[in-house]
C-alpha cells in the first residue's frame, strides 16, 4: 500500500515538475506547480510529518500559489519567446544538470544505513513538534516573525511606489496598476511603451 501511494504521488510530482518546464504559458506552469506541491504534501504524510503536510497545503499550495496566479493574471503575462540565450543555456545547462543529478544519485544509492519508511512508523505529532519549537528554538521562531513583518512592509513599499510617475496616494497607484494590467495592448501602444521597444531593438 505504501509503495503504491509512493509511486502514484512521486509520479504525479515528477509529471507536474516536467510539465512546468514544458508549458510556455505561465498560468499552466503555476497550475502544475500546485500539483507538485499537493503531491509533496501526501509524501510528507507518508513520512509521518503530519503538521508539515498541512502547512505545505496551506502555505505553499494555498497562499504562495494564489499569489503567483494572481500576479500572472494581474500582469497579463503572455507566452514566452525562445531566444538565443535560451538555446545556449539549453546546450550547456542540460549536460551540467544531468551530471550533477548523476553524482547525487550515485551518492544516494551508495549510502549505507539508509532505512525504510513504513506506514506503521507512526506520525510526529504537532505537540511533539511545538514542544521543541517553542522551547529550544524560540529565538529563531521570533526572528522569523520579524522577517515576515519586514517582507510585508517591503512588498507593500515596492508594489505601491516603484515606477509610477505621479506620486499619488496608494489608492490611485492601485487604480493605475489595474488599468496597466487590464489592457496589455494599450501599454504597448502608448508612446512610452513604443519608445522603449524601439530603443531596445
Amino acid at each position, binding site marked *: 500500500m505504501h509503495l503504491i501511494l509512493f509511486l502514484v504521488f512521486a509520479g504525479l510530482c515528477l509529471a507536474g515538475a516536467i510539465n*512546468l518546464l514544458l508549458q510556455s504559458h505561465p498560468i499552466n506552469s503555476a497550475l502544475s506547480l500546485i500539483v507538485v506541491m499537493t503531491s509533496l504534501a501526501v509524501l510528507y504524510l507518508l513520512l*509521518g*510529518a503530519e503538521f508539515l503536510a498541512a502547512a*505545505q497545503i496551506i*502555505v505553499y499550495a494555498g497562499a504562495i500559489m494564489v499569489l*503567483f496566479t494572481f500576479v500572472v493574471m494581474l500582469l497579463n503575462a503572455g507566452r514566452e519567446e*525562445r531566444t538565443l540565450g535560451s538555446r545556449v543555456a539549453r546546450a550547456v545547462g542540460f549536460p551540467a*544538470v544531468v551530471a550533477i543529478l548523476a553524482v547525487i544519485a550515485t551518492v544516494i544509492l551508495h549510502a549505507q544505513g539508509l532505512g525504510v519508511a513504513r506506514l506503521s512508523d507512526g506520525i510526529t505529532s504537532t505537540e511533539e513538534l511545538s514542544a*521543541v519549537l517553542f522551547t529550544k528554538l524560540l529565538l529563531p521562531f521570533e526572528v522569523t516573525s520579524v522577517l515576515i513583518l519586514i517582507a510585508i512592509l517591503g512588498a507593500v513599499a515596492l508594489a505601491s511606489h516603484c515606477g509610477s510617475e505621479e506620486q499619488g496616494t496608494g489608492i490611485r497607484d492601485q487604480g493605475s496598476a489595474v488599468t496597466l494590467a487590464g489592457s496589455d495592448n494599450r501599454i504597448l501602444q502608448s508612446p512610452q511603451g513604443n519608445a522603449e521597444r524601439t530603443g531596445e531593438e
Partner: protein
Amino acid sequence: MSSLFAQEVPLSWYLLLSAALFSLGVVGFLITRNLITVFMSIELMLNGVNLSFVTFAHQWHAVKGQIFVFFVMMVAAAEAAVGLAIIIAVFRARATLAVDRIDRMKL
C-alpha cells in the same frame, strides 16, 4: 504482485525523488525565459530540498529536521511576497517579463 503491496519503501527513493525535483528546478531556472516561471523554478528547488529534509528527519527520528522545513516555508513565503512585488515593479517600468529584455539596472 505481492511486492507491489509491500509495506515499506526505501528512503533512498525519497532522496532520489528530491534530487530529481531539484534538478528539474535548475533546468527550469536555466531554460525558461519568463520572469515568473524562473521564480516558480526556484520554488520547485526549495520543495525538492524540503523533501530531503523530511526524509532525513524520518531516518534519524529528529524533530528538528521538520522544524527546519517549517522555517524554510516561512522564508519562502516572505521571498515570494517580496519577489512578486519586485516583478510587478519591473513590469511597470519595462512592460515586459522576458528576462532577455531586462538586462539593465537603469531605465
